[in-house]
C-alpha cells in the first residue's frame, strides 16, 4: 500500500514549467505510454486487490476502500480492449479525481513526470475508434509517443447494457 515517492526528482523540472506547459504523470501499459495531467492525480498506490462489482463491464475491476470511501478501479488495458490485466503486487493504481468523483486506474507502472508544451499536443489521428474515444491528444516526448487519457471517457459506460 506504500505510496510511490514522486516528488524527489521534480525540483529542476518544475522550474521549467511555464504557463503554456503541461505536467503529466506518465504510466505504461505494456509497451505503450499514456499520460494524465498531474493535477488530477490524487494518489498512487500498489495494487492490493479489489472487490469485484457484478453486472459491470470487464474493465471495471471492482471497488477498493480508500480511507473509508469506496472507490471504483478501472483496468485501462481492458478499457482499450486488450483483455484484462493479470495484476501483481507490482501493478499500480493511480487514483484520480474526475469531476467530483474519485476513481482508480489500474496500470502496469508509473514511469515518469513529463513537462510538455501545450503547442506540442497533436490531435489523435482518425482511425481506430477506441483511440479517438479515449484519448484527448498525443504528444511526443523523448521520441516516445504519449497518449493523453480522456478520463471522462474512460470511466463512462461501465454498466452492462440491460
Amino acid at each position, binding site marked *: 500500500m506504500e505510496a510511490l515517492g514522486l516528488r524527489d526528482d521534480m525540483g529542476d523540472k518544475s522550474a521549467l514549467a511555464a504557463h503554456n506547459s503541461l505536467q503529466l504523470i506518465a504510466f505504461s501499459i505494456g509497451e505503450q505510454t499514456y499520460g494524465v495531467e498531474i493535477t488530477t492525480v490524487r494518489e498512487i498506490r500498489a495494487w492490493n486487490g479489489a*472487490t469485484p462489482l457484478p453486472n459491470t463491464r470487464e474493465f471495471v475491476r471492482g471497488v477498493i476502500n480508500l480511507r473509508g470511501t469506496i472507490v*471504483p478501479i478501472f483496468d485501462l488495458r481492458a478499457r482499450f480492449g486488450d483483455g484484462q490485466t493479470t495484476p501483481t503486487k507490482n501493478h499500480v493504481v493511480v487514483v484520480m479525481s474526475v469531476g467530483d468523483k474519485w476513481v482508480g486506474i489500474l496500470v502496469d507502472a508509473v514511469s515518469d513526470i513529463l513537462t510538455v508544451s501545450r503547442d506540442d499536443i497533436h490531435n489523435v489521428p482518425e482511425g481506430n475508434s477506441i483511440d479517438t474515444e479515449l484519448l484527448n491528444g498525443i504528444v511526443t516526448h523523448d521520441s516516445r509517443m504519449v497518449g493523453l487519457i480522456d478520463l471522462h471517457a474512460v470511466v463512462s459506460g461501465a454498466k452492462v447494457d440491460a
Partner: protein
Amino acid sequence: MSDLDDFKATYFDECSELLTELEEQFAAIEAGERDADRLNAVFRAIHSIKGGAGAFGFSALVGFAHAYETLLDYVRDGRIELSDDVVVLCIRANDIVADHVKAAQTGDALPAEYGLDEKARFDALARGDSIGDDDDSGGEPMDEFDIDFTPVMVRLDAAEDQSEELPDTFEMPPMQAEAGHWEIRFTPYRALYARANDPLLLFRELAALGEMHVRAILGEVPPLSDFEPFAVYCSWEITLVSATLTEAAIREVFEFVDGDCDISIVQVGSQGTASAAIIAPPAFVDAELARLRSQEQNLMALADDEMGELLSFTPEPAPAAPTIQDNFEAAPALSFAELAETIQPKAAPQTAAKANPPKPTLVPAAPADGEESHGRSVGVQSIRVDLDKVDRVVNMVGELVITQSMLTQQMDETLRARYTELVRGLEVLAQTTRGLQDSVMAIRAQPVKSVFSRMPRLVRELANKTGKRIKLETIGENTEIDKTVIEQLSDPLTHMIRNSADHGIETPEKRSAMGKPEIGTVRLSAEQAGGNILIVVEDDGAGINRERVLQLARDKGIVAPDANLSDEQIDQLIFAPGFSTAEALSDISGRGVGMDVVLSNIKKIGGSVHVRSWTGKGTRMTLRLPLTLAVLDVMLVKVGESPYVVPLSSIVETIQCSRASFERVPSGERVLQVRGEYVQVIDLAQRFNMAGGSAHDDRFVVLCEAEGSHKVALIVDDIIGQQQVVIKSLEENFERVDGIAGGTILGDGNVALIVDVQGLKTAIVHKNAA
C-alpha cells in the same frame, strides 16, 4: 455580526417548530377541541414568532403576525366566536405567516399586497364583533393595537427629577388615597420567563380588577456592555385602585407565578402618592409592557434603523440625543436606562375614551394558560445541538462498532482459552458499544409527529377540492425514527395520502350507494416492528381497480401484453414509473409521478413499500423503514470468492442446500419448497456472473423476505457470520449497480457489497414481464 446570524438561525429553527405546533393545534381545534389551552398555545406561538421578527426587523412578518395575534386575542377573550370560518381563516393565516417566515429566511421579498386580504378580514371580524360591545375597543379595534409607539427618551434612573423636568410629557392624573388603594411591587425571577409566563397577562388580569397604573423600574438595568440577554432586570410597581378589592383577589392573579417572583402587596394609606414616571390608561398598559419587555429581551438585536428612530424621537433631554447617536458604535457602555423608552399614545383624545377597564372576559382563560405552561415546562429540559455535531458522533460510533466487531472476530479458540480476561473485556466492550450506539441513535430519533401533523390539512384540502368527505385518523405519532428518515418521509407520505384521497375514497353519493358511511376514512399509523418502522396508510375506499391497472400498464408498455401477473404484482404496478390510473388528470394527483416518487424515495433510505388492496373495501400501503441509516446488522456471506452482506432485517432463515427441497416449475426455473410455500430461487453467483462452485450441497440458501412478505431464496457459497456494518455509498464515486444496495468496509479493510434483495426480485419480475 455573526452573533446576530446565530440568533437568526435559532429564531428560524424555533419558527419551524412553532409553525408545526400551530398545525397540530389547529388540527385539534378543527376536530372540535376548542378549549382555551389550544387557543393559548396558538396565541403563544404567534406571539413568539412576532417577537423574534420584531427583534430582527422583519417588518412584513411583524405586521401580519400582529394583526393575526389581535384576532386571536379577540377570539381568546370571547369577543369573536371561533366559528368554522374563523378557523379556516386562521389556517390560511398560518400559511401566510409561514410564507413570511420563509421569505425572511431566504431574504426574498413577498409581494407587498400579500396577506392583505386576510388582514382586512381580520379587521372586519374584529370590528364587526366589537362594536357596541366594548367601550374600550371602540370602533377601530385594529388601531388600538397598531398605534405608533412614539419612543420618548427619559432618564429613568432619575425618575423623580424627571417628573419635574418633563411635566408636560405625561398626563398625571392625581392619585387620591382612598379605600382599596393598593401598591404592588412585582419582581419576576428568570424562572418566571423560563416557564413561559408572561407579566403582560398578569397585568391584564390586574387591570380587570380596578384602575391600574404601572411603573417599570429599570434602575437595575446594567450598561449595554454588561447586558445579559436572558437575565431579568425589570421589575414593576403597580398601583391598583378599586373600592372592593381585597388582597386575596390580587394574590390570586399571581397564584401561578408564586415562587418565581417577589411580590409585595401593600394597602396604601392617605400618603399613597404614585411616583409614576409612566402613566398610561389601562388599554395601553398591555402594549406598553409588551414593548418594554421585548425591548429588554431584544435590545441586543435592535435593528439600526429602529435605534435611529428611537433616538431621533428624543425630546428631552435634547442635547444628549445627538451625542448618543454619534457615539453609539463607539460607546458600547451606554446605559440601558438611557435608551429605555416610554410610550406616548398617538391619539391623546382617544385615550380618555379607552380608559375604562376592559371587561374581564379574559379572566377564565388566563389562569388556564398559566397552569398549562407551568406544568408543561417542568418536564422539558433540552438543549439545541447542531445536527452536524451529532452526525460526527454517529459516524465515529459507527466506526467504533465496526472496530469492535473486527476485534471480536479476531478471537479464535486458542486465544479464548488463553486470555479469559481479554475475552470478558471484549464482551463488556461489545455491550457498551451497543449501548452507546443505541443512545446516539436515540439522539437523532424524532417522533413521526412532525410529519404526521402536516397531513390533516392536506386531507382537508383534498376533501374540499374533490368534494369528498374524508376523515383522517392518526395512530402512533410518537413513534420515533431517525431524523434523516423523517425528512425523507414527507414527500412519499403526501403522495400516498393524496393517492388514497383522490383515487381511493369515493364520492359521498357513491359511498352511500354502496352502503358505506358517507365519510371516508384514511388511517395513518406508525409502529415499530423489530428493527423496522412500519408506516401504514389505509383507506376504506374503492380499492385498486386491477383490471384497469393491468390494462393501462399494458397500454403504456410497462408490462408485456401476455404477462401473467398475480393480484399482488398488479397492485405493485402502481409504483412503476410513468404509471397513473386517474381517468381525469386532476391537479391533485394523476400526473403519473407520485407513486413512482414514493418508491424511489423510500428505497433511497433503505425502506420498502408494499400495497395490498381489497376491491370495494380499501387499500393498504405499508412503508417499511429502517430505524437508523448509519449502522446495519448484516449477515456476511461469500459469493464466488467475494464477500457480500445481506441485511439481517430481511433474512427469514438460512438452510443448507443439502437439506433444502428444490423443485422445478414447467419453465425450468428452480423453486424452493419451504413449509408448503414455493419460493423463487436466485443463485447469486449466476446472477452476478461469478464462477461459483456449482456443487450444490456445500452451498447455503438464505431465505429473505422482500417487500410485503414476498419471499425469495438466495443461494450463496458460504455463510461467514453476522456483524454490524456502516453503509457506504457506491454512487459517491461510481454509479448505481443493479442488485447492489451499497458497499461497506469490513474489519480487514476490504470492501463488501450489500445485496439489494428487493432490487434483485424486482429485476426478475421486470424480466418476466418484458
